[in-house]
Structure formats: structure tokens, C-alpha cells
């Protein structure tokens, strides 16, 4: 049975934002609060992962990391021809969308982890390492897909944009600090980074609801193909994630989280990178699909589904 999720309170904050946006409320989350919250969430996720990583032998992570990144890199390569041929999208748009769906969403991951905590399901704490690793490859592939056979390639710019980009600096920085300091060293910071995590995630989701509502308009231009893609792609990628995780022997929680990662579409790192590397792609299409449809879909339906899937696969593969 799929666990119903709508009453998980952080999701309710997202719905509140969505409704307020659709009702044209004057409620606005100041842009600076949004930025401050995302700095907090990225650092907190990194720190938590780092503390878990300190308990782990790094050597044992190499093989799973390679498999997870390798299979993850297949996602944009599968999505691209579908978008270009079936969706009749321009090469640039197809490549940009492939990059968005191949990369990952940090907040979807955070909600997934919160969901598992609320149903009392453990998971491997080092999953956040895969979150970091899965952020890049799809962006590189997206740029390559858009530029194939066109000579000039701004890969260097994209590499700098991504590696020196704030999400990676904060995630990796938090990871390293958590790893160096360990659970004991981090203890005096727990009150901020761990105790307040869920509350601040709730406020962040309120804002994401408002933003998602403002993106619904973009979807009209998108057409039904893209609407279908924005729901089918996460289900496909989520299934692939759950299978990969079972293959690697991850726990049920780990499988649900890897499925969530594969299924999630980036709406922070990818739009920023694509805007610079593939400017002729229409950002309204990719952000509209990733944020207007896939993000809410994953929050309300996707995550419980991936968890259900992970439990079905337990012991099977």
C-alpha cells in the first residue's frame, strides 16, 4: 500500500503556497529569505551527510558511487531523443530538459528524507554523497547534446559555473566540515542545523509553492506532451533508481532515496547552468515542467510511490 502523504506537514506548507499563489494573494517570500533558507538547507544537508560519512569506510563507497553515477548519466541520454523526436522540441530545448531531469533536486531529496523519518524508515546517511555526485554529469551531457557538431563548446564555463556554484560549494563544504568535525565536533551546531531543519524546510516549501504557482502560466505554452513527460519521466527514473539500489544492496530507505534522486528534476543548478551554456533554450519550458509539475508530483505522489516500490523490491533482486 502506498503511504498517503498529504498530511505530512511540510507538504501542507507547499500546498498553502500553491493555493496562495493561485488565489493571487499578495503573500511574497522575500528573495533574500529564499536565498538564506537555501544556504541553510544546503549546509545542513551537507553537514548531516558529512557526519554520516565519517562513520563510513570511503573505499566501500567507490563501487556504488560509480554504478550510481553511471546509470544516472544514462537518464539524460534516454530523455533527449524522446524529447526531440516524440516531443518535436528543438535540439536546445531537448538538451536543456534532458539536463534538468538528469540532474537532481536537493529539496526533493530533503523532503524524501523527511518522509522516511516520519514513517520511521532508516537509510544510509551517506546518500548525500550521491546527491552531490549526481548533480554534475547530466549538466555536462546536456551541454554536449546541445552543442554536438557545432564546434564551440562552453564546457569550461559550465564546469566553473557548477563546481564553483553556490549549491556545490555549500553541499561539499558542509560535507567536508561534517566529515572533519564528526558528530561530536558538530554537536554545538546541532541546535541550528539539525533541530530547525524541518521547520525551515517547511517555510522554504511555502515559497516553492508560490513559485510553482507562478510557473503554471508557462505550462500552457508547453503542450500536453511536456505535461506527460513531466510525470512519466520521474516514474521511469524512480523505478530505475529503486532497481539500481536493490542491485547494490542498499537498504529499503536507501533505495527509496535513490529513486527519489533519479526521479527529481533540478530547478536550481540546471536552470542556472543552461541559461549560460544553452541560452537559446527556452527556460520557461524546462522550469515550468520541473517546478510546475515534476516537483509537486514527486512531493505528493512520487516519494510515497518510490518508497512502496523499494519495499516491493526488498529481497527480490
Amino acid at each position: 500500500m502506498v503511504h498517503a502523504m498529504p498530511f505530512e506537514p511540510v507538504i501542507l506548507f507547499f500546498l498553502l503556497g500553491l493555493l496562495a499563489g493561485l488565489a493571487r494573494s499578495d503573500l511574497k517570500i522575500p528573495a533574500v529569505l529564499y536565498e538564506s533558507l537555501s544556504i541553510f538547507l544546503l549546509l545542513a544537508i551537507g553537514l548531516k551527510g558529512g557526519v554520516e560519512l565519517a562513520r563510513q569506510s570511503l573505499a566501500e563507497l567507490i563501487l556504488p558511487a560509480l554504478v550510481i553515477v553511471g546509470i544516472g548519466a544514462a537518464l539524460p541520454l534516454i530523455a533527449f531523443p524522446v524529447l526531440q523526436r516524440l516531443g518535436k522540441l528543438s535540439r536546445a530545448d531537448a538538451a536543456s530538459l534532458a539536463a534538468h531531469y538528469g540532474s537532481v533536486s536537493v529539496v526533493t531529496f530533503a523532503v524524501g528524507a523527511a518522509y522516511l523519518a516520519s514513517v520511521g524508515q532508516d537509510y544510509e546517511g551517506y546518500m548525500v554523497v550521491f546527491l552531490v555526485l549526481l548533480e554534475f554529469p547530466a549538466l555536462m551531457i546536456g551541454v554536449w547534446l546541445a552543442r554536438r557538431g557545432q564546434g564551440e563548446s562552453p564546457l569550461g564555463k559550465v564546469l566553473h559555473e557548477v563546481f564553483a556554484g553556490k549549491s556545490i560549494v555549500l553541499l561539499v563544504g558542509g560535507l567536508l566540515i561534517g566529515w572533519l568535525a564528526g558528530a561530536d565536533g558538530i554537536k554545538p551546531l546541532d541546535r541550528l542545523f539539525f533541530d530547525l531543519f524541518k521547520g525551515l524546510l517547511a517555510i522554504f516549501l511555502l515559497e516553492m509553492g508560490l513559485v510553482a504557482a507562478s510557473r503554471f502560466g508557462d505550462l500552457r505554452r508547453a503542450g500536453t506532451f511536456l505535461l506527460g513527460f513531466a510525470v512519466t519521466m520521474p516514474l521511469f527514473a524512480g523505478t530505475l533508481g529503486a532497481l539500481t539500489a536493490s542491485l547494490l544492496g542498499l537498504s529499503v530507505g536507501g533505495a527509496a532515496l535513490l529513486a527519489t534522486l533519479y526521479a527529481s528534476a533540478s530547478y536550481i543548478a540546471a536552470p542556472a547552468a543552461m541559461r549560460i551554456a544553452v541560452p537559446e533554450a527556452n527556460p520557461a519550458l524546462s522550469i515550468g515542467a520541473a517546478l510546475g509539475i515534476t516537483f509537486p508530483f514527486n512531493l505528493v505522489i512520487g516519494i510515497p510511490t518510490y518508497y512502496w516500490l523499494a519495499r516491493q523490491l526488498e529481497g527480490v533482486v
Partner: protein
Amino acid sequence: MTMQPTTTSATPPLASYTRRTLLTVICEASIEGRVAADARRLGAHGYTASDARGWGQHGTRDGGWPLSGNVRIDILCEAAIADAIAGHLQANYFASYAMVCYLSDVSVLRSDKF
């Protein structure tokens, strides 16, 4: 509208002014760094930016979200340099980015700065 430019200004010549061109660019916040670098390369000696929001051909950009913010850039320089920057922006950004740019005539103090 009484925009007769032949009306002579009553200001006493206390300070000495020089005519310069003010190039104003309104564009997506994500390319601010590139526009600033381009302007410097093409000869601008300074630039000023502020956050902005708005709407135009590319729809509403309300600044409620980092990716939907605009920026207003002002560059004070000689007319030829303003023209070179405007031409460069037209060639490189107009097709793919939300961007507006316009020029006005202003009187500056310390003309050697610009």
C-alpha cells in the same frame, strides 16, 4: 509636452560639465557579470547596478526567485564606447535573453573619469 531643447538652462557655470552618454541596460540578473565584463573590455571605466523587476516581451520577471530577477545597469561613458557596448549587447544577448537597452545624454563633472 514642452520638450524644447533650445531652452537654455539658467544654471550658472559654477562647475564645469561635459556631455557624456549614459547607457542603461535592463536584463536578467544571471548575466550581470558578463555584461559588466564586456563593458570593461570595451572601454567603460565604471558601472553601477541595482536589483530590479518588471515585465516585457519575455513575460513577467518578478524577482521573487533568484532566477526571475532583473538588474538595471548604468554605464557612463563616451558616446562611441556606449555605442560599441550597445552594439555588442545587441549582437550577443538580444536573441536569447530578456534585455532592454537605451542611451541618454547627460552632463558630468570630472569628465576624465568616464
